[in-house]
């Protein structure tokens, strides 16, 4: 299932592959340890606090702030057709960080610290299905 996550497939299998179903359902989620309650984004199957292997997905706020970004002109394999594209790292209000591509609403010259939303996205279907998230300008009604 994890092979549907992101813009290209590099990791085919993971215990947190269920994030794809969550994104398909329009939910932005973190992992939560069912023993000690520690949350993680990016999700992880094994708790870094208590080492438990039991976790569940919990929906978290999409609210975030821009930590840094770069516009890529020299692309790796699978991204040749997309240059230039802008990649951002954001600090999630719910804790943790995410890396994602800029969506259409976020200006590429946004200052660091700009409020953004991390928005679930689905593209294609069948063998071409991809589930990921993009960074968008924060709209009040889009707040998770």
């Amino acid at each position, binding site marked *: 299932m994890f092979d549907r996550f992101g813009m290209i497939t590099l990791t085919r299998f993971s215990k947190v592959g269920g994030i794809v179903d969550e994104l398909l359902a329009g939910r932005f989620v973190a992992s939560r340890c069912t023993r000690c309650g520690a949350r993680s984004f990016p999700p992880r199957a094994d708790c870094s606090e208590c080492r438990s292997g039991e976790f569940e997905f919990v929906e978290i706020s999409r609210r975030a702030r821009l930590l840094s970004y*770069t516009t890529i002109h020299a692309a790796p394999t699978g991204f040749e057709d997309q240059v230039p594209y802008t990649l951002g790292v954001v600090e999630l209000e719910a804790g943790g960080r995410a890396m994602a591509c800029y969506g259409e609403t976020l200006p590429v010259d946004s200052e660091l610290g700009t409020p953004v939303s991390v928005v679930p996205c689905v593209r294609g279907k069948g063998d071409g299905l991809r589930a990921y998230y993009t960074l968008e300008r924060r709209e009040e009604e889009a707040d998770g």
Partner: protein
Amino acid sequence: MRRVAVIGTGHGRFGVRKDATVQELAFEAYREAVDEAAIDPAEIGATWVASVPEYQKQRSLAGVIQEYLGLNPRPVWLTEAACASGSAALHTAWTAVAAGLYDLVAVVGCQKMTELETAEILALMGRVGDVQWESVFGSTFPAYYALFARQHMARYGTTREQLAAVAVKNHYYGARNGKAMFQKEASLEKVLSSAPVADPLRVFDCCANADGAACLLLASAERAKSLGGEVVWLDGLGSASAPMSVLRREDLCSLPSAVEASRQAYAMAGAGPEAVKVAEVHDCFTIAEILALEDLGFCAPGEGGPFTLAGETRTGGRIPVNVDGGLKAKGHPIGTTGVSMAVEIVRQLRGACGERQVAGADLGLTHNVGGIGQYCFVNLFRRE
């Protein structure tokens, strides 16, 4: 533990080496080191090979190197820590000599990067970050350092001109190093106007893939002293790791592994940054040299840019850095780089660097980073 010395150094020509296999490159450096030390190769008790295996078609490279060097049946193995593989091999070899397992060993850094097709290199490049959560969004190696640069510029006011000054300096010294890939100066204008790679980094902010080898011979104190003359000692070693994922890093303006490794190395050698006379730091990108100056304590956080622009990292400045051209102009055969850094420092301490020589160098430092700081090794060498 026993004190360990470097008794031999060898360094081949870096660049696109269409003329040689990886073992032939290794031999160039090995021959120079054995000749320089004037030892019988039969004394070499074991060999550590540093290389990043994905770049070469040959599997299990260490075996081929040991055979070609003519050192069978003595043991050999490969050490890998991405761009810090060379220092990882040196660190491990040091422990074996210090522990008394061997009296004399070889460390061979060798890498053939340009044999792969461009598409294969690009595919590899796309997988240097965390492939599960980052590479799937199109991150590249320069992109990570671009994220660091953007933060540094926003927080401290670091400028494009200050970044470019690193490249200008390193090309100045590369033009004076006969083993460098680019033996040509680069003007500030040329650096600033080069093509964008990952904004704000441009082509001249980035080091180049290269082929090349370097070799060190390490010996116990007793064996080193028997050779006569002054000895260069590896007296301080520091090594540390940091999260692979940039998403798990607290600060994007510092490599925590570099801070920790330098703390260890300074403590072990009993010397601080103010005592260091010459340094080799990991300038895979211009911003990386600025972060290194700050992480190593050569200047305060945020001052790396102005410090560089003021010429403090040139010969005659407060701390000459990468006066062999650095990764930027010398080239970056990734498995070899850490060994190459150590070769330059040992030769600086011996006063053997000609017009690039730093006057009075008696304590030198290497700072070798793997990936985006997942690994970092800091070493201190002392002449006495």
